[in-house]
């Protein structure tokens, strides 16, 4: 028997090579797909069949405000993350590896450190009597402590902090994929650094920016921990609202409807993301 024939060997009746996926498929099917579908069904059956949960969701100013807030925060976080991450990724893509590995080490350390630990640190840093306010007052920049926590500012700072590695790492990859010779060619063609940036470097890194940005946006939309701890009650985000509706108000129907909206938006953006980078490169930071 040739090696090629071996490759085509299959388990009884199953398509070639699919058998290994069975345990994973069973696990995900039984404990992921079934519960999620059951939850979504609940949004149109609890407390009685009908669309009243969605009507309540989109009819109430409070909930519409939550939607608006969620998208606003996600958009702001994504924009700031891209602006901060791009120069860093650029530098990391070209700097000598010995120096770069220090920065990479810091990025990995921050990424691997417990999420609650990081959020806790920002709670302490940003509070009224926290280091940042004291330092600014000490420098005479401000005279009253700035409200940095329990509002959008706090959420943005905390979220950007958490999202940065997810933007920087894939972006380094896509910047490294650009041949430096291309930029040399642009310079010899007469392009000033600004022209070379605008016409060559930026367009060539745009797919990486779009893919990373979309990932950060999607993650931010459904983020729970950081907004819940650093945000205020007046600008609650969707994930926290879903958790509260179910856990405190025990309103499963409404919570499920909100969960469905979040899921639908996330999956739609995920589909675009897959188009953009292909399933293989998803999770490129790992």
């Amino acid at each position, binding site marked *: 028997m040739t090696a090629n024939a071996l490759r085509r060997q299959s388990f009884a009746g199953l398509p070639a090579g699919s058998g*290994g996926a069975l345990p994973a498929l069973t696990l995900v099917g039984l404990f992921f797909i079934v519960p999620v579908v059951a939850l979504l069904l609940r949004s149109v059956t609890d407390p009685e069949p009908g669309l009243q949960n969605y009507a309540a969701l989109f009819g109430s100013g409070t909930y519409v405000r939550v939607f608006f807030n969620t998208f606003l925060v996600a958009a702001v976080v994504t924009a700031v993350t891209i602006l901060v991450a791009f*120069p860093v990724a650029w530098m990391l893509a070209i700097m000598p590896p010995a120096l770069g590995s220090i920065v990479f080490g810091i990025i990995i350390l921050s990424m691997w*450190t417990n999420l609650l630990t990081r959020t806790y640190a920002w709670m*302490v840093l940003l509070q009224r009597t926290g280091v940042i306010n004291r330092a600014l007052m000490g420098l005479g920049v401000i005279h009253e402590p700035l409200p940095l926590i329990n509002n959008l500012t706090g959420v943005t700072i905390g979220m950007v902090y958490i999202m940065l590695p997810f933007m920087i790492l894939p972006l380094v990859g896509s910047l490294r994929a650009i041949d430096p010779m291309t*930029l040399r060619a642009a310079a010899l063609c007469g392009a000033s650094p600004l022209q070379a940036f605008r016409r060559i470097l930026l367009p060539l890194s745009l797919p990486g920016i779009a893919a990373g940005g979309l990932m950060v946006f999607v993650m931010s939309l459904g983020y729970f921990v950081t907004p819940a701890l650093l945000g205020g009650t007046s600008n609650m985000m969707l994930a926290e609202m879903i958790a509260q509706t179910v856990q405190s108000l025990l309103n499963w129907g409404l919570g499920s409807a909100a969960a469905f909206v979040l899921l639908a938006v996330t999956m739609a953006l995920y589909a675009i993301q897959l188009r953009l980078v292909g399933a293989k490169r998803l999770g490129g930071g*790992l």
Partner: protein
Amino acid sequence: MLLDYDRLGWLRAALAGFTALVAAFLLLPVVFIVLLSFGSSRWLAFPPPGWTLKWYQELLADPAWIDAALTSAKIAAMAAILAVLIGLLASFSLVRGEFRGRQLLRGLLLTPMVLPVVVFAIAIYAFFLRIGLAGTTTGFVIAHTILALPFAIIPIATALEGFDKSIEDAAIVCGASPLQARLRITLPSIRIGIFSAAIFSFLASWDEVVVAIFMASPTLQTLPVKIWGSLRADLSPVVAAASSLLVGLTLALMIVTALLRRRLSR
């Protein structure tokens, strides 16, 4: 020239300065929390008026913290083992299989990573309430294995893609059974991927907060749930001590990873 480190001119200084600032930004909270955990101020004043180990003593004297840490470790270890085993089998199918819908299957198995955790959390919570697994270790492990699975599949599948299948075929032609060839040739070759998978899936469970908040019962609490509860109550320096220990653990894990990778890649 924009991608030539040596020819950037003033731009290089600007980029390097900015990168240093961002690196400092990323490092700041981690360093800060470790410093505060040794500070004597109950209100987390900075710089601390004095240095002390009392928050660590308080932490280690509290059996609730110790219990939570042990519970977390147990659940994370089990979830990691399951995720790696199931992920390994699945990766062979995803990379080597020749069947329609392979890409779809891949997308499906990676979905738990993309779906907002809060949606999965309330879904599995409701499901487990119905079948009596809510608040049990088994329920925890199942939920965390699902969340960890993508983190196991990605590195293993990547390693497997980089492994030349004809080496395995050569072993089979030499007389090894397909199973022997996989166990003795392929698995050792992709061990870095398997190792990364183990680390990532352990961390995915160890750090998981959202599902844990729903699944926890008064008798079954993981470390993140315990921290979450403390944070909601007040900003006690004991949390800083616990956090510092977690930072220490992260650093240790990073060093072990780096060393092992270096050894394994020889």
